[in-house]
């Protein structure tokens, strides 16, 4: 950079501190969600199947017949909305985390094999992935619900099957680029066998983009679970998730807007935070990945 008019321009300090702050803030928010989801329903002594029709459709802040305040209102069968949101959070987060674990495990393993081995292994796994992507997840969900009935487990299964591909693809790309690096050759020369090289040498170095993908996927899975529940293809009525509550609240949008809106806000908040966390992680690990 030249100094055209003699003035010396200042150079801003390149610091990674703003990114670290972002990551910490996001993690704190998610942790709060988590704590609320785990302990909230216990503290509130919540029973999702109990109905209280005398206290139904109460506005946020209104008083119940027994004198307690319904902080966020009640729904159409009298359930406390605050408890519903907390309980629903638990369902959504369980669905998110377990789906991620299952999809991640399957996807990363398949991606590693495909990328590391190459050849026919790669070809077969990638065609499998293409097949998966071509198949609409909704159909699978309908099929499973029809056959097995609605349950949280089925939701997790469906979403895992629908989402493993992105993990496989990212892992495969990483494996392809890492496997020819000299330190992998070095480990091989020292006597490392295939599985060791894949899981102990390549995989730990492939984690950075996977972390980013994972945070974004969790958010998408939570939305997907909510959508499935919204359509009646998700958790049963006895296990209220945010999607279910939102769905129920549809009919009351003009009279009791809080039933659909408040869980909706909670859902958006969590997914947004996860997305921003993913962004910050990506920036932290490799600013050149901004185009991903």
């Amino acid at each position, binding site marked *: 950079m030249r100094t055209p008019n003699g003035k010396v321009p200042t150079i801003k300090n390149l610091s990674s501190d703003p990114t670290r702050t972002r990551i910490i803030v996001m993690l704190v928010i998610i942790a709060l969600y988590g704590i609320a989801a785990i302990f909230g329903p216990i503290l509130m002594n919540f029973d999702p199947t109990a109905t209280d029709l005398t206290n139904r459709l109460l506005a946020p802040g209104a008083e119940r017949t027994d004198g307690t305040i319904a902080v966020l209102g009640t729904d159409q069968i009298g359930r406390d909305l605050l408890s519903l949101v907390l309980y629903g959070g638990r369902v959504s987060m369980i669905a998110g985390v377990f789906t991620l674990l299952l999809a991640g495990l399957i996807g990363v393993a398949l991606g590693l094999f495909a990328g590391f081995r*190459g*050849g*026919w292994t790669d*070809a077969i796994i990638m065609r499998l992935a293409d097949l998966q992507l071509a198949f609409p997840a909704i159909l699978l969900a309908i099929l499973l619900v029809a056959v097995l009935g609605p349950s949280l487990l089925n939701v997790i299964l469906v979403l895992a099957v629908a989402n493993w591909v992105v993990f496989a693809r990212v892992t495969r790309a990483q494996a392809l680029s890492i496997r020819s*690096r*000299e*330190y992998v*050759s*070095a*480990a*091989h*020369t*020292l*006597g*490392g*066998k295939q599985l*060791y090289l894949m899981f102990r*040498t390549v995989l*730990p*170095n492939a984690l950075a983009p996977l972390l980013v993908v994972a945070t974004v996927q969790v958010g998408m899975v939570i939305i997907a679970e909510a959508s499935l529940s919204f359509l009646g293809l998700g958790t049963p009525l006895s296990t209220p998730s945010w999607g279910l509550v939102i769905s129920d609240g549809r009919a009351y949008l003009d009279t009791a807007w809080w039933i659909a809106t408040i869980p909706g806000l909670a859902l958006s908040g969590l997914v947004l935070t996860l997305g921003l966390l993913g962004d910050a992680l990506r920036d932290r690990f490799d600013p050149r990945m901004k185009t991903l």
Partner: protein
Amino acid sequence: MVDPRTPLLEVRNLHTEFPIGSQLRRRNVVQAVNDVSFDLQRGETLGLVGESGSGKSTLARTIIGLDHPVSGSIKLDGAELVGASAKARRETVRRMQMVFQDPIASLNPRLTAEDSVSEAWRVNPGTVKRGQWHNRAVELLERVGLNPDHAKRYPHQFSGGQRQRIGIARALALDPELIICDEAVSALDVSVQAQILNLLTDLRRDFNLTYLFIAHDLSVVRHLSDQTLVMYLGAVMETGESESVFTSPRHPYTRALLSAVPAVRPWDGPPRERILLSGDLPSAINPPTGCPFRTRCWKATQLCADERPELAVADGTEQLLACHFPEPVAEAQEVSHT
């Protein structure tokens, strides 16, 4: 008891090729190593020289097992490696190791210095007891010129020379007899290169090592090697005692190669003859018939195209060369160049 005259490493008629394009449909193939044979005696250092496309790196990788030959034989102390079972191959790991070129890429960024070294024992259970890993690793790191407090640091915290030292310590971890140095000093600054060369010299003496030293820098090869082998387009052009090859190169390519090395003090002594090769390296997919060097050789004739010259001794010197028209023996030109 192994016959002490058995070479530690015997390579015969080795061929390695790579498909171009899709691995599934083998159409075009690169002849990376084309009928290479040589011996490496215990305790010797063989310098493998060549330019890009010569196949020297592929040869190294094939010997160490990272690439697989199409045909030929590699014998380590009499035991055949090509086609050997995985178990048999694993035995050789303890006898033959490698130091890689790129100090940054050859270390796993997630392993500390001592972990990089102890990985050798991790993947070979039974060689060193787990409780001893730390001490043995630190010992090795000190042996290559690092401090104990370097042991817990990560690769990015070291300089290029230090990383290369870690790579050398790692190669020594399994107590090998043969170490293949694949351009081990090429990526280092001149002043650091000298340190590592001295280190390699000391280790050779202390551990009774045999080196297969691959480099493109001729001065480095001359400094370290007893024997020198010159490769071009996958084939051996000339091989023999370094003294002989460097002072009296008989193969036209070797002569051209040596004449191209710039002298640090060109004003000392008479002006050297500069042989400038014409043309480019021919394609490795379709190597020239007969002698691979003929397309750029000023002496090439039809014979060179029809018949690939065999590796044989030429009158007047001891080294082997593959040429129909060897260069004359050089007069003793003991001019002091540095």
